[in-house]
């Protein structure tokens, strides 16, 4: 490799960095560092202008290392890497220095020290960049089929979409029937159509689709491998099926919270959840009865702070349907706030009011109380707006509870190596930049598995996930990161420490010239570097995070 010629691009990020870090001073400092042949600042390095500046810099100054000091590599490294590639520079010769998320934003009260820290970080970055080496990515073949976990409306939509694009789909459903949560739902908002009218045709289509194989009463027992070649084991009542897929979609949904012990639930027979009400409504109930609903039971409270989003509309829909069928019955919804976002929903809310459904606002400080002997007979509620306590006649109390994470989420998280959020929902890679994708390559998520969604949103997400999952299937290959381990066979002693440490089975011992040496299967190596940190002979190089690179960063710690 030629002598390093480092270019440093320091970003103002508007005022986000510029207001707290003295960017021009930092640029001057960068110019004084070894092998830095060019340094400049940009208002936004990620803008069209900034990207052009990087490309121009590479050409004008013959740069062979590029540093951007800016926001965070987690969001913007791919962009700057591709700018380098476009200018003919191997993308692994790019180095990111984080001076926004980990500097200017956390030291807003001390610009002088923040500037000093930015200089230190850039000095360390330059020390590392000088040693960076170009890496080449291998191509991995992708099996042209997908696994969809979950046979609800969202999973079925994803499966059908993938199948229509020409790919084989394995659809695994743990219940004995396709349809998921909608099997328990009576009608859907805002169309008031029966849920079965949506699910039945979908189920028929899935079951008759020649390239969709459905596994009912089944669970995914094991997933090994990686994008392009996941080896899946499905257990169906003791009978195991094994197959390979290129990509995986998780559409396992969520479940309704059963609010045991709240407002008499589990003790009084006429206290139900919304889904239990739906079951009764399928049979024509609750005819002529006074119905009180309480919203946000177990939601938006300490410990479960999120809004489940779908329950307000679901309650309004059921209240409307009950009131419309029995105009003489009293129907009340006791709520804290009402979430009826969107064109149809707000109109539906108005329609329910016109129909005679009564809405009463309560507060967490004065929750409604259930009065009755053995069953809910009256509901006492303090009307927040009228500043008055009311007693409502009640034949049926319906508790509107949030969707909570599916019971299998822990298992899915472990099996697919994907993250959970603080509540236990599956966590996508990035809310804005990578929706429906997991951080794990080749695995995607849609529907209520990641957050409570209604049918419309769920199907949109299913299509999004299916189109994402189809990408690698269509191209037929993927290029994973080249950040992998490699072994210097000459100094490997064949002790096998790395073999036992590798969580992916990527390192194996093979005979060579009369001894055993470690060998890395590049396609299986995820680049964690656990082996490199443990090799007693120093025979393992963890590319892009080599010992030399990290040591150089440390040596540059102090001036």
């Amino acid at each position, binding site marked *: 490799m030629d002598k390093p010629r480092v270019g440093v691009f320091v970003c103002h990020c508007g005022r986000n960095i510029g207001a707290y870090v003295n960017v021009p001073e930092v640029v001057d400092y960068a110019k004084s560092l070894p092998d830095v042949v060019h340094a400049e600042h940009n208002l936004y390095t990620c803008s069209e202008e900034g990207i052009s500046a990087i490309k121009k810099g590479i050409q004008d100054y013959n740069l062979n290392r590029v540093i951007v000091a800016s926001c965070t590599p987690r969001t913007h490294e791919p962009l700057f890497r591709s700018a380098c590639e476009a200018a003919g520079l191997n993308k692994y010769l790019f180095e990111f220095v*984080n001076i926004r998320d*980990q500097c200017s934003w956390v030291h807003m009260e001390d610009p002088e020290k923040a500037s000093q820290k930015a200089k230190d970080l850039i000095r360390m970055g330059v020390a590392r960049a000088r040693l960076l080496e170009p890496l080449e990515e291998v191509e991995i073949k992708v099996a042209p089929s997908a696994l969809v976990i979950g046979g609800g409306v969202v999973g079925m939509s994803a499966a059908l979409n993938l199948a229509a694009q020409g790919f084989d789909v394995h659809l695994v459903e743990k219940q004995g029937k396709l349809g998921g949560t909608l099997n328990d739902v009576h009608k859907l908002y805002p169309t008031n159509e029966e849920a079965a009218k949506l699910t039945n045709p979908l189920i028929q289509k899935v079951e008759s689709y020649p390239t969709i194989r459905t596994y009912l009463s089944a669970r995914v027992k094991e997933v090994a491998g990686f994008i392009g070649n996941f080896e899946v084991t499905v257990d169906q009542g003791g009978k195991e099926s094994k197959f390979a897929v290129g990509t995986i979609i998780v559409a396992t949904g969520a479940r309704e919270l059963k609010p045991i012990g709240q407002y008499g639930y589990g003790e009084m027979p006429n206290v139900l959840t919304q889904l239990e009400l739906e079951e009764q409504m399928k049979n024509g109930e609750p005819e002529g009865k006074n119905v009180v609903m309480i919203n946000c039971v177990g939601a938006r409270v300490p410990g479960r702070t999120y809004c489940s989003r779908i329950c307000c509309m679901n309650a309004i829909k059921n209240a409307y349907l009950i009131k419309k069928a029995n105009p003489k019955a009293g129907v009340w919804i006791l709520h804290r706030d009402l979430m009826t976002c969107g064109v149809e929903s707000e109109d539906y809310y108005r329609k329910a009011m016109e129909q005679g459904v009564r809405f009463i606002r309560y507060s967490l400080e004065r929750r409604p109380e259930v009065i009755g002997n053995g069953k809910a007979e009256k509901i006492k509620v303090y009307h927040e707006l009228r500043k008055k306590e009311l007693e409502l006649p009640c034949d049926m109390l319906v508790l509107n509870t949030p969707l909570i994470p599916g019971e299998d989420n822990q298992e899915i998280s472990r099996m697919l190596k994907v993250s959970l959020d603080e509540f236990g929902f599956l966590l996508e890679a990035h809310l804005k930049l990578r929706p429906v994708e997991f951080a794990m390559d080749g695995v995607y998520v849609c529907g209520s598995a990641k957050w409570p969604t209604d049918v419309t949103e769920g199907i949109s997400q299913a299509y999004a996930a299916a189109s994402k999952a189809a990408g690698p299937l269509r191209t037929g290959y993927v290029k994973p990161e080249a950040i992998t381990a490699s072994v210097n066979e000459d100094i490997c002693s064949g002790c096998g420490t790395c073999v036992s440490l590798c*969580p992916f089975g990527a390192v194996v011992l093979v005979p060579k010239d009369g001894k055993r040496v470690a060998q890395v299967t590049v396609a299986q190596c995820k680049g964690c570097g656990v082996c490199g940190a443990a090799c007693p002979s120093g025979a393992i190089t963890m590319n892009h995070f080599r010992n030399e690179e*990290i040591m150089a960063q440390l040596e540059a710690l*102090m001036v």
Partner: protein
Amino acid sequence: MHENGFEPLIVGFCCNWCSYAGADLAGVSRFQYPTNVRIIRVMCSGRVDPAFVLKALEAGADGVLIAGCHPGDCHYIAGNYKAARRISLLKKMLAQLGIEAERVRLEWVSASEGAKFAEVVTNFTETIKKLGPGPFNRKTAKAEEGE
């Protein structure tokens, strides 16, 4: 001599998936913490060779923080457990060498724990301030020579 105005230099090894993201979240949330830490990104806390920690101290760091995913949350399944074993052994070794084991700290910080990251750095900086300069802090050494 150390108590007044001693600003420790701390190296923070953060794993890419959890702790580095947690450190980013501290920024996104504008949680303020002391300026003493210099973060080095590694893919996994299991990548942190104890030699890196020793090197950091030798290079003049007064403290070294290693932050990884919570047990069970490692992006690479169990790299954090390996880090935990290595760092606890290293701390024993440091004590034998006459270096305070408290200069090295292992913490679990998830991607959603921006507040925790800020708290860990604040707390660790305080600890190192109390301990005084590290064994190879060249700035202090120079100052002492000059005295």
